């Protein structure tokens, strides 16, 4: 018997335990919504090179808004990006970008290539703000109400169905709520 021969099964056991925990704890697609109903974390990020202003939590007060976490190295972000361009052009709701752990050069090239739908973008170089937001993977999208509370979190790339049936209805509902509260 050679102890080395037992290395592969032992290593596999570690991987298998991790995968099992992954299924049990990480719960694909239904990842923590602990932040729902919570105020957005405090942050003040510089702008991505080539865009006019940075992005801080103060920007999220006073208006219903969307925060989209993206990165140039993230493939699904490209898939969803045209929809954000569309939303940006529609002008119904401001979309803020959180550029997650990205190189400045790549990010500004990416924006030039695929369009910049964002009202403003914060460069989250070390990912600290992303962690505060509870970002699981890029892309992720948050809907923030007028008081700066997170009301919806969407994980993964959005598609038209999610946009039109989940995200935009939530935005409209929150906007209607603001109007109603303003009228009182």
């Amino acid at each position, binding site marked *: *018997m*050679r102890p080395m*021969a*037992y290395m*592969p*099964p032992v290593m*596999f*056991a570690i*991987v*298998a335990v*991790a*995968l*099992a*925990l*992954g*299924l049990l*704890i*990480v*719960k*694909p*697609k239904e990842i923590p919504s602990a932040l729902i109903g919570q105020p957005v974390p405090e942050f003040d990020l510089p702008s991505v090179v080539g865009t006019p202003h940075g992005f801080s939590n103060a920007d999220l007060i006073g208006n219903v808004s969307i925060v989209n976490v993206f*990165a140039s*190295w*993230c*493939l*699904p972000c*490209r*898939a969803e990006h*045209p929809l954000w*361009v*569309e939303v940006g*052009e529609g002008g119904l709701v401001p979309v803020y970008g959180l550029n997650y*752990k990205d190189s400045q050069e790549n990010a500004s090239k990416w924006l*030039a*290539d*695929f*369009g910049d739908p964002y009202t403003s973008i914060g460069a989250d170089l070390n*990912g600290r703000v*992303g*962690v505060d937001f*509870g*970002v*699981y*993977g*890029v892309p992720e999208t948050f809907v923030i109400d007028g008081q700066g509370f997170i009301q919806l979190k969407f*994980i*993964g*790339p959005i*598609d*038209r*169905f999610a946009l*039109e049936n989940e995200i935009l209805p939530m935005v409209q509902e929150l906007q209607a709520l603001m109007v109603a509260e303003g009228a009182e």
Partner: protein
Amino acid sequence: MIAELGHFALILALVVAVVQGTVPLIGAQTRSAAWIAVARPAANAQFAFVAIAFAALTYSFVVSDFSVLAVAKNSHTLKPLMYKITGVWGNHEGSLLLWILILTLFGAAVAWFGTNLPPGLRARVLAVQSLIGVGFLSFILWTSNPFERVLEVPFEGNGLNPLLQDPGLAFHPPFLYLGYVGFSMAFSFAVAALIEGRVDPAWARWVRPWTLAAWTFLTIGIVLGSWWAYYELGWGGFWFWDPVENASFMPWLAGTALLHSAVVVERRDTLKSWTILLAILTFSLSLLGTFIVRSGILTSVHAFATDPERGYFILGFLVLVIGGSLILYAVRAPLLKSGGLFAPVSREGALVLNNLLLATATATVLLGTLYPLMLDLFTGKKVSVGGPFFEATFFPIMAPLLAAAVFGPMLPWKRGDLMGAFQRLRVAFFVSAGIALAVWAFVSGSSWLSTLGIALGAWLVAGSFASLAERIKLLRAPLTDSLSRAINMPRAAWGMTLAHTGLGIFLLGGTIMLTWQTESIQVMRPGETVTVAGYELTFQGVGNIPGPNYMAERALFSVSRNGEPFTNLLPEKRAYVSSSMATTEAGIKATWAGDLYAVIGDADGKGGWATRFFFKPFVHWMWIGASVMVLGGVVSLTDRRHRVGAPAQRRKTAIGPGQAPAPQMAGE
């Protein structure tokens, strides 16, 4: 009715699989000829039942029987016939059925062609193969029944994801599965050999063609997927290091290593224990890929409808198959006696280096794929690992591998001479270094990375040519003599030369394309002209073109070069009737120097359109290089030795049929 027949056939297949997975195994252990003989007819029956089930599901798709849930969810009456058929495997349940069909097909192939295998080994191989089948058949019957009915039958189906309605992607899964599942053969042979406690050159001679076939199919599958991403997604890219892409790439890397180490077992009767381990790991990575894609444990653009319940089932299966075979390996592998010795500098040594580097590369990709999950578990941090990680870790491992790939074939078995090999490769070395330096000096935009890429690509092509020239004594013997040597050269050697050359061509194409591509993004109004890489593209306008199940906005760009009309590009944006999804179809004109690539985006509402042009130099070299690699695999498969299986027969006649006491039998 037809759907129920299919369901029933699947249940029968599971019953047969249970029998085939146990009876021959016991028979081989107790040397009962009658029990051993169960294996072959059972393998045929299992394949036949699964084929009936697959035909039943295909029929339901073709006639648009929306009372079957899978059809209702994934098909549509307006879909062209071809996509109704390919829709069978365009969803979780159907693709799993295709997987099982291929698994049982390989089992049946052993029953048909394995006539010269010792009956005991054949029975064990078929039993192990069938036990994998038991797992997958249970999985499909208990969690993913493709024949599930709907009570309220809808008038119309949901339609297939429009992105999948494309010839490139329609045939991508079958080839991918032929590759994935093909490695189950190597796995079954490995486990059977561990049970027998014996690995000999005849074993390797059997494993090699199966591995080679699986590798060839997997290569085709991966290339089809990349090619599709290139022209369909409209991003101009072809590989994104997405978890699902990695899931297919890891078995490819491990399978490539297995391909090379099996040569050593066959020719030199050594590296046996390692080769067995590689065979187990290669198939394990295929299974892991299935788990990643279908459990939803990692987020990916490619994922099927994910379901954690299925995740538990596959994970349990993974633990049984991988854990069980690795423990069997740990217990039995030390009994395998090693054969011939060799010096570090030798053909064997080069192949060991190849294996070390490929195994490291595989581990790197595995780490990058699973790291986000691990980190989340242990620290609660959420990260995504993207291209930057893989570019920083994968390529530095591949560079020495590619450099060494040329040396290997120049070294003799047992003991080689590095300086001597270099002497014979010096022309290739100076040619490739010269090309790389000339490009670096005279072409603007070069970087040290592009220079290295070109040097390695040219080195692979020139070095493969040099080893070919040496084998056939080109210019050193009369031309007719060289020609007859070339004709008589073993097909496996031709295959190797072609595969290495193809890899070089691929690398050259990829390097040049990534370094010197140009792109241009702008909003254009009809009549405006943009110049890209010397081509003037004039936007003529956009028209609506109806398709069979979509409405297309097709743009017309007339392209001229130096004022001369050159071609028209017609990129499209398609909106599908049955879903709200849109797809882009790039307009591509292939020229000898590269692809001119146009994509049309959205209208800005003020008469302008977002447009995007690329010029991608040498991109077709990548597809040519990949095709040459595949050709190498096919040519090598036609090698005489694979068909004859000569040593196995020699052994039979020499010692007596069947249960010959083989010289390597150490463990029994």
